[in-house]
């Protein structure tokens, strides 16, 4: 959409001066579309301006660069289509940084177009679309904000990258392979150069993926020439930052860097190298064993965490392939579950020892550092070392004390990964139900190989593992996961143990309870206090007691486990629930900048992990460890010490893996904590509500077009229904020969075709139909087929119209009419008597048939027909009044003099000697006054009287009876009411109908229309019965009806009379039921 008014890019003022004078002068400010748009654009801009001033005030950010203007000063963007971040966010950026955001494209005002995607056609004619303006990716805005300066845009041009970001091509799916091979090369080069453990350690954290090669080279270079020689400006800048945590020890930083190994700016690497220099100084400060244990766990968790993704990726295809194989195999299975738990022996050490076969029988351990005085903890020790009493979690210092000739190696994660991959390749080769527990530990479900000897099978696997990896593995074989795992403990090292189901009990008898998985120190101590140590003892305790002491869950577990029961299944892959990264070590910030920088790196890390797994996440959780007030310095240097955890999450509208978005959200959450950054001891960023990349892109699959098409179809249906209904009413009214109504069909005809093309007409149709005097100028574009025409309608059209129509139908119409005439004559009597019967009941039937018989032959003469109608009225009126006068006779006599005249008229009426004029004019008013007078003297005689007369419950049935009656009546008001009810009436409520009547009435009938007296009776009867129906259940509705009736009374004499008749009985009913009278509008004070 383009604004037609030209104005300069910065010409807001000229714009205003142009459009403003218009507004006050003209009655409608928008003479045409152009001026409307100009005004709208102006308004949008001033809103934007107002928001900008408030938001910059509120945020108080340092968003303005030196000259006091925002970084986007003079920039005006137009966001086209869906972008990430959304146009709202981009607008927000522009708001805060002095830019502008246009809602509508204008060549003169917009300076940059921002969009993420462009359709192919626009891509090809980019110049035509952009009108010469730069078309940029939204990251330009985001990056500019991040850099706090306006970046040059050419590198962000969409056209630039279109070849890449357009449709995903086949090679993209092989992308990961390419990357991993690239990584292999890196690993190779690392291991070539790094022969001594120290350098290996230095490089084990080398960036894994997506690191640009330049950085790699730089790192290699730095490794050779040391720290100070790097002349790159960036690095020196980073040096300063690095020095802030100079004093941290190497172990802490190792972890730190590991979590941030994807940080692109070399921050991690730099501090790593630095800290290796200073690490020795601080090792002696370590005293807290628990903390060390936590740290160790963390480190392993991290390795396993990253390993698991790798495993998933690597074995994904294999898993799928084997699944199909398993289907074939399982057909022969006998469901004797057999589980093998296979575990590498001292994995972390064995892998290292592959290169040092001479050390195989020497005590060896793995640790960060070989410093004999240090308190770095042993991560794993081999069996010779274990014989000396060295165990995992020990400090190097202590370990060296018990085993002076202990050789300590650092981790070699690359080697671990390699071995783990080999290990799993072998497992998958032999068995297709593999549950990976860790990088060196897995469950195999071999129940499908029923003919196989499990011991034999596992020894084959173990042998192959040993041959391939030069590391040994142990296996436990049993009926379920629990027993297999327990068996492995007895099989170690390098052995295997088979527990057949009959031996389970004896095996468990003497097993300490704490050896069971899932039973920790807390439960162990509790059991200990009850003198329960072995599973055998535990078995004597009833389930109930266990439930009482430990709760249902743990109680069940204990009860099952001590009996060797475990019904878990071998699961091939567990669904990942969340992905994140957490750093609890070495986190010290001096100021907000540090913190933001750290969050940036953490976000990048998390983002890359998400990308690695090919998922996007919606919820971001930021966990912050904050030093507890009054906490002492942590025992371990740079540890987190005594902390309180603060955690908050935020859910994004769209799932993302975008680092900047994550980073921004993380910062927002962090800001919401309002804590002093110097107190922060740990930060964890976790993403949950994961979605697989592919699925969220199909989210908009609901076909909007389809739903759009559905709507007109439905409306069309309704139209047809309405059409039919109107045909019948028109037919009815015309069959009685009312000249006045004869024009109607022409409208009907035209309307038919109109309705078909116009949806709106459905609401108007009724109106149009009833405005019979209105000329229909526009000829219908298409005629309905001749067979669909209603002959009874056509026949009554004026002759010239019929001839015109006949021409339109090429003469077929006359033929049809003739034919119809003959048919109709034979049915004439029937047609006329039917509605009459409904109205009158049996008493007057004979009379009616007589009169209709006399008039039916002269149906084509309007005057006669009218006369006939009047006679009908007479008969009816007479009938009503006869009964009425008998019921009310004694009251009438008692009425005052003023009503005596009316009474006499009524007497006349009942005798049936009334002439036409008296009926049309005199009676209604007199009758009304009589009625009112009667009511004043004694409440509600007329209501019951009328009801008694009819003895028909007008409101019974669905639709209510009166609708039918009114439809066949020849009064317009009644027809209209019935039609409105048929169309809009719900739940037998009258108020909506009355409301519609108010708006329709003047249009259709005007205020001066004459209606036969009968109509008043029908309406009164309807309302009185309605009051009866609703008085005890819905006085609100009655009140509403009354108010509406009052309004109707002001436009229609008919309703004003009806109002006057009904009101007293309404008040009477109310006072009977509620002990008061309705508050009337007239008497409000």
């Amino acid at each position: 959409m383009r604004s037609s008014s030209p104005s300069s890019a910065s010409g807001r003022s000229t714009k205003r001066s142009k459009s403003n004078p218009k507004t006050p002068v003209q009655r409608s400010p928008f003479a045409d579309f152009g001026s409307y748009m100009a005004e709208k654009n102006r308004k949008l801009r001033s809103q934007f301006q107002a928001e900008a001033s408030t938001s910059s005030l509120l945020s108080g950010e340092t968003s303005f660069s030196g000259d006091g203007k925002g970084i986007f000063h003079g920039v005006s963007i137009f966001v086209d289509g869906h972008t990430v971040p959304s146009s709202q966010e981009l607008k927000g950026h522009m708001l805060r940084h002095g830019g502008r955001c246009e809602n509508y494209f204008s060549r003169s005002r917009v300076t940059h177009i921002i969009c993420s995607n462009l359709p192919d056609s626009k891509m090809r004619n980019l110049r035509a679309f952009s009108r010469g303006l730069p078309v940029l990716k939204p990251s330009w805005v985001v990056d500019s904000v991040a850099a706090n300066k306006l970046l040059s845009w050419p590198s962000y041009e969409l056209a630039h990258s279109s070849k890449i970001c357009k449709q995903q091509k086949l090679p993209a799916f092989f992308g990961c392979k390419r990357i991993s091979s690239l990584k292999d090369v890196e690993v190779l080069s690392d291991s070539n150069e790094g022969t001594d453990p120290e350098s290996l350690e230095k490089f084990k954290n080398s960036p894994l993926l997506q690191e640009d090669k330049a950085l790699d080279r730089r790192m290699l270079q730095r490794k050779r020439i040391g720290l100070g020689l790097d002349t790159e400006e960036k690095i020196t800048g980073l040096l300063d930052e690095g020095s802030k945590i100079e004093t941290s020890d190497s172990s802490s930083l190792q972890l730190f860097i590991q979590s941030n190994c994807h940080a692109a700016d070399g921050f991690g690497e730099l501090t790593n190298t630095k800290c290796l220099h200073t690490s020795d100084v601080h090792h002696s400060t370590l005293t807290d064993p628990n903390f060390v244990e936590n740290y160790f766990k963390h480190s392993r968790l991290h390795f396993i965490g990253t390993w698991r993704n790798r495993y998933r990726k690597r074995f994904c295809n294999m898993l799928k392939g084997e699944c199909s194989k398993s289907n074939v195999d399982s057909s022969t299975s006998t469901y004797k579950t057999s589980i093998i738990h296979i575990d590498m022996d001292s994995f972390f050490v064995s892998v290292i020892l592959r290169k040092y076969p001479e050390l195989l029988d020497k005590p060896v351990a793995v640790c960060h550092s070989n410093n004999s005085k240090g308190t770095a903890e042993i991560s794993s020790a081999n069996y010779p070392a274990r014989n000396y009493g060295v165990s995992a979690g020990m400090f190097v210092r202590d370990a060296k004390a018990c085993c002076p000739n202990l050789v300590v190696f650092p981790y070699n994660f690359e080697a671990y990964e390699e071995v783990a991959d080999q290990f799993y390749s072998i497992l998958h080769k032999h068995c297709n139900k593999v549950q990976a527990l860790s990088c060196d530990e897995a469950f195999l479900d071999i129940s499908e190989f029923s003919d196989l000897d499990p011991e034999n099978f596992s020894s084959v696997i173990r042998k192959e593992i040993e041959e391939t990896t030069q590391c040994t593995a142990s296996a436990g074989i049993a009926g379920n996961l629990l027993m297999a795992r327990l068996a492995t403990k007895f099989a170690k090292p390098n052995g295997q143990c088979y527990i057949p189901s009959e031996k389970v009990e004896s095996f468990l008898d003497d097993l300490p309870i704490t050896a069971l998985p899932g039973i920790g120190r807390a439960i162990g101590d509790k059991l200990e206090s009850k003198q329960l140590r072995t599973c055998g003892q535990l078995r004597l305790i009833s389930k109930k007691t266990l439930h009482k002491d430990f709760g249902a869950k743990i109680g069940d577990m204990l009860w099952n486990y001590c009996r060797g029961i475990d019904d878990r299944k071998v699961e091939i892959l567990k669904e990942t629930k969340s992905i994140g990264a957490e750093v609890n070590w070495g986190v010290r910030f001096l100021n907000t900048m540090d913190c933001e920088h750290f969050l940036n790196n953490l976000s990048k890390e998390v983002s890359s992990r998400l990308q690695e797994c090919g998922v996007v996440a919606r919820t971001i959780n930021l966990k912050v460890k904050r030093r507890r007030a009054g906490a002492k310095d942590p025992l371990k240097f740079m540890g987190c010490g005594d902390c309180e955890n603060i955690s908050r999450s935020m859910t994004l509208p769209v799932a993302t893996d975008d680092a900047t978005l994550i980073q921004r959200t993380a910062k927002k959450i962090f800001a919401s904590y309002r804590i002093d950054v110097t107190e922060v001891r740990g930060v964890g960023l976790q993403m949950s509500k994961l979605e697989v990349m592919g699925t969220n892109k199909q989210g908009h699959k609901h076909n909007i077009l389809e739903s759009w098409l559905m709507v007109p179809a439905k409306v069309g249906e309704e139209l047809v229904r309405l059409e039919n209904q109107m045909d019948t009413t028109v037919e009815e009214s015309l069959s009685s020969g009312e000249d006045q109504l004869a024009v109607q069909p022409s409208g009907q005809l035209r309307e038919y075709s109109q309705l078909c093309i116009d949806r709106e007409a459905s609401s108007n149709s009724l109106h149009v139909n009833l405005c019979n005097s209105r000329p229909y100028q526009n000829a219908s574009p298409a005629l309905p087929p001749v067979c669909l025409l209603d002959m009874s309608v056509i026949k009554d059209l004026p002759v010239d119209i019929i001839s015109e129509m006949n021409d339109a139908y090429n003469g077929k119409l006359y033929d049809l009419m003739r034919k119809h005439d003959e048919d109709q004559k034979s049915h004439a009597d029937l047609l006329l008597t039917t509605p009459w019967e409904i109205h009158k009941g049996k008493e007057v039937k004979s009379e009616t048939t007589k009169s209709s018989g006399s008039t039916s032959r002269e149906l084509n003469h309007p005057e006669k027909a009218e006369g006939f109608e009047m006679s009908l009225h007479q008969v009816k009126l007479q009938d009503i009044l006869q009964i009425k006068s008998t019921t009310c006779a004694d009251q009438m006599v008692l009425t005052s003099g003023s009503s005596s005249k009316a009474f006499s008229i009524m007497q006349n009426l009942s005798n049936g000697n009334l002439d036409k004029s008296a009926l049309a004019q005199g009676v209604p008013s007199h009758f009304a006054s009589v009625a009112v007078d009667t009511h004043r003297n004694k409440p509600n005689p007329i209501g019951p009287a009328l009801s008694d007369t009819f003895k028909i419950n007008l409101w019974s049935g669905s639709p209510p009876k009166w609708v039918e009656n009114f439809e066949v009546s020849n009064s317009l008001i009644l027809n209209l009411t019935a039609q409105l009810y048929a169309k809009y009436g719900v739940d037998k409520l009258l108020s909506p109908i009355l409301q519609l009547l108010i708006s329709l009435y003047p249009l259709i009938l005007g205020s001066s229309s004459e209606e036969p007296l009968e109509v008043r009776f029908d309406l009164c009867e309807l309302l009185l019965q309605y009051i009866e129906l609703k008085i005890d259940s819905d006085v609100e509705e009655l009140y509403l009806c009354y108010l509406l009736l009052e309004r109707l009374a002001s436009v229609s004499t008919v309703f004003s009379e009806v109002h006057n008749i009904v009101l007293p009985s309404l008040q009477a009913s109310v006072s009977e039921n509620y002990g008061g009278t309705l508050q009337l509008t007239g008497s409000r004070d």
Partner: protein
Amino acid sequence: MDRRNITPQGQTAHVFVEFLEVAVSCIVFLKGFYPAGAFERRRYMNVVVHKAKHPQLGNYIHSATFGLLPFIQKGLIERVAVIFYDKDRVPVERFVFKLAVNQSHASPVEEKSLEFTLRAFLVKLEVANPLTKSLPPGGSWEITAYFRSLPEENDATDGRMWVPTDTKQWLQPPRITPIKSMSSEPLKVQLYLEHPSSTEPMEQEG
């Protein structure tokens, strides 16, 4: 209260009594009898309502309405009125809930639809201010229930909370302004306002 094995009447009564408590709070708030600060915004049936913050006021409304529960269940209550008096304890304005519980209704109650219809009352009440009259200073208010028949004496402790009242009545039939009506088997409720008739002899102040 155990809601599982009770009659539809009991179920309805429980919902209604709960509603009544909220509605009465809303009425008192609407009339501005206490400063607006004495109420806090709450959400009930997904509508913003006002709840008395003062424990005594809240308790009065709560105990009065919940005290009606057994009687409503039995269909003994005909009307519940929130009456505002002037300083001479002459009623100025009455908010009347006229209710009817169909005792023969047996099918279980659609609690959702019942709540849906009752919610309309609260919505309407929030905007009913123009219908009401401003209160003279120094007035008071109370909740009065009209029983179809007097509860039996031995009828548990709940009944004792309700004492016969000698509230002054208007001499003329009042004028009624309906506010809201509902009918959801087995419960029918009408809420309307009663004002003294214009012919009512009113003692002028001073």
